[in-house]
């Protein structure tokens, strides 16, 4: 480097132990970034094998039991070790303290513990997979998981338990931080909506995860000690397992999507150069999603044997939960209206999010209708629905956020041309992979089947889907490559390359270890883009 590097969180201390024993939330965020990227590739690898098997109607690539393990491990790894931590653990850890003007999270050591718990859980899961894996589906329903399967349920369950504890501690840290560590003047109504989104996510993490934790304990107890709580032979009810499982696992999908919505809100505001339309509505919709999300879990059980009257109740509630999400989409749209739109890579991902999340969300309403649900449950329609939200929504939001904040995190600019190309490839690859699956599901192709030779006419759509998955894979690889490239060869980033609003942009890129030289005092509203873009470039009230 030509000039002496300013001291920042990356170069303040060197050496492996300065990273492994760090309590700096920004370094912990990077530790998470590396770990979840690793698990994303593991989960992606399983996806690749699944798609390869489905190229032909016959089950000819792997055996049936192996295929069961493939979709199980794909699901478990992607849900518990990629999607749930992703944005909160990487972008949330990095940005929450900075956005509120704090030096760190409330409990930095617990933050590090969270990462270690994640790693321990991850290692346990890896070991489980390498020594035989699990074949129950990521949903490990009883009584198959408790009484019949010979695969390593207890080990996988414990891995998820430990990772879940990591998730709980992250949520705890965020809630306490947001309540207690806001800078002077940073009132609740001046908080970036990214913070509101993470607050709502944390509520779900805190109140939902313990229930699946105790469910895992029950399953493990049943397998190890033959207790029989879900065993029909003893009078136990397998549906009770499903109630307890989905009480967490449905809100879990909101853990996966809410942070992404928070990212999209930040990006939309910046690249339309406008305040978010309906700030209060967007803020409260995050809380509403968190609360309503706990009311709808049995919509995963409509055909499992539950009471049809309870099913009616849950169906109605499931319609209600769509409303706050729709409110967000309307407010984003209203923000874009008459905005000064820039099409940088983060914005491309945000646009992709809005379109694909809307499709995914609307198909969720299809599934909430009991009549349709009976027809498409356990088909590829459901698979397409949740991938539109998880991949088309959450992952695109994650990528958009990584691009948006990359200059701040790394101090380097990524190559914009390549980034826009990658965003386009991701979008095309995604739709090519998953849109055919809506059609397949509606036409009756069941999920979790490795052989569809009874309906060979499904092949063409499956081939398209696999082709799309390949394109999507390329789209995901590109950012990995150019982000790494930029760390060495990228242009140094200014403090605020996007001229964005938010306290994090008032620090150098990359920031110093304690974020702010002086505690900021906030006197302006969030998303003050009119002031930032003021023609006479008047100095915006700033802490320093």
């Amino acid at each position, binding site marked *: 480097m030509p000039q002496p590097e300013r001291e920042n969180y990356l170069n303040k201390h060197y050496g492996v132990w300065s990273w492994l024993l760090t309590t700096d939330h920004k370094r912990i965020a990077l530790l998470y970034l590396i770990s979840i990227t690793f698990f994303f590739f593991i989960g992606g690898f399983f996806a690749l094998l699944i798609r390869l098997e489905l190229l032909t109607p016959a089950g000819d690539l792997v055996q049936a039991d192996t295929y069961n393990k493939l979709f199980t491990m794909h699901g478990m790894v992607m849900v518990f070790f990629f999607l749930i931590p992703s944005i909160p653990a990487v972008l949330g850890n990095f940005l929450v303290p900075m956005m509120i003007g704090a030096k760190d999270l409330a409990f930095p050591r617990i933050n590090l513990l969270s990462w270690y718990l994640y790693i321990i859980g991850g290692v346990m899961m890896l070991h489980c997979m390498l020594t035989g894996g699990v074949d129950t589906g990521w949903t490990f329903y009883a009584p198959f998981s408790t009484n019949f399967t010979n695969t390593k349920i207890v080990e996988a369950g414990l891995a998820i338990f430990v990772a879940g504890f990591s998730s709980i501690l992250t949520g705890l840290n965020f809630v306490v931080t947001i309540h207690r560590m806001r800078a002077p003047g940073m009132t609740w109504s001046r908080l970036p909506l990214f913070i509101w989104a993470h607050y709502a996510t944390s*509520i779900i993490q805190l*109140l939902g995860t313990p229930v699946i934790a105790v469910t895992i304990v029950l399953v493990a107890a049943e397998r190890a000690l033959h207790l029989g709580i879900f065993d029909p032979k003893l009078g136990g009810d397998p*549906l009770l397992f499903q109630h307890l499982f989905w*009480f967490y696992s449905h809100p879990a999908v909101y853990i996966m999507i809410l942070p992404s919505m928070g990212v999209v809100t930040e990006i939309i505001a910046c690249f339309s150069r406008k305040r978010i339309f309906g700030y209060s509505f967007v803020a409260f919709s995050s809380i509403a999603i968190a609360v309503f999300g*706990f009311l709808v*879990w049995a919509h995963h059980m409509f055909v499992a044997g539950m*009471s049809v*009257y309870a099913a009616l*109740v849950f169906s109605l509630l499931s319609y209600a939960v769509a409303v706050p999400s729709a409110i967000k989409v309307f407010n984003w749209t209203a923000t874009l209206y008459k905005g000064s739109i820039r099409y940088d890579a983060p914005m491309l991902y945000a646009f992709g999010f809005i379109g694909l999340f809307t499709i995914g969300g609307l198909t969720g309403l299809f599934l909430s209708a009991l009549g349709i649900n009976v027809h498409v449950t356990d088909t590829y329609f459901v698979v397409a629905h949740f991938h539109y939200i998880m991949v088309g929504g959450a992952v695109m939001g994650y990528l958009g956020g990584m691009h948006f904040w990359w200059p701040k995190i790394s101090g380097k600019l990524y190559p914009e041309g390549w980034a826009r190309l990658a965003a386009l490839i991701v979008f095309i690859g995604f739709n090519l992979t998953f849109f055919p699956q809506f059609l397949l599901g509606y036409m009756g192709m069941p999920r979790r089947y490795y052989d569809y030779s009874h309906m060979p006419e499904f092949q063409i759509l499956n081939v398209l889907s696999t082709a799309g998955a390949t394109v999507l894979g390329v789209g995901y690889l590109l950012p990995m490559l150019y982000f790494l490239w930029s760390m060495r060869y990228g242009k140094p980033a200014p403090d605020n390359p996007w001229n964005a609003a938010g306290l994090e942009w008032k620090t150098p890129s990359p920031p110093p270890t304690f974020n702010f030289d002086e505690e900021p005092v906030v006197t302006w509203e969030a998303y003050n883009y009119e002031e930032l873009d003021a023609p006479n470039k008047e100095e915006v009230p700033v802490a320093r």
Partner: protein
Amino acid sequence: MLIMSDHSKSSPLPTYFAVFIALLIGTGLTVYASGLDLGPFNAPIALAIASIKATLVALFFMHIKGASEKLTKLVVIAALFFLLLLLGLTMTDYATRAWS
């Protein structure tokens, strides 16, 4: 939040001992009530006594009453609310299965 040597208050000890006695009485009461045939009310009464005891512990031993801010109460209420959601909505299934 946390009581930090609030010298303006009188000693909290009498309150603590009063709550202690009340908790022991409540325990005896619930054992006694379980021995009576109260029909369908045995369980609700047992739960009511337990809830009063729990409330006493929370209000006076955990210092929710008096010293703490609204946020603590909100956390407690939220936890109870979501617990009741879990129990209540699950029971909508079990209570109505026989209707089909």
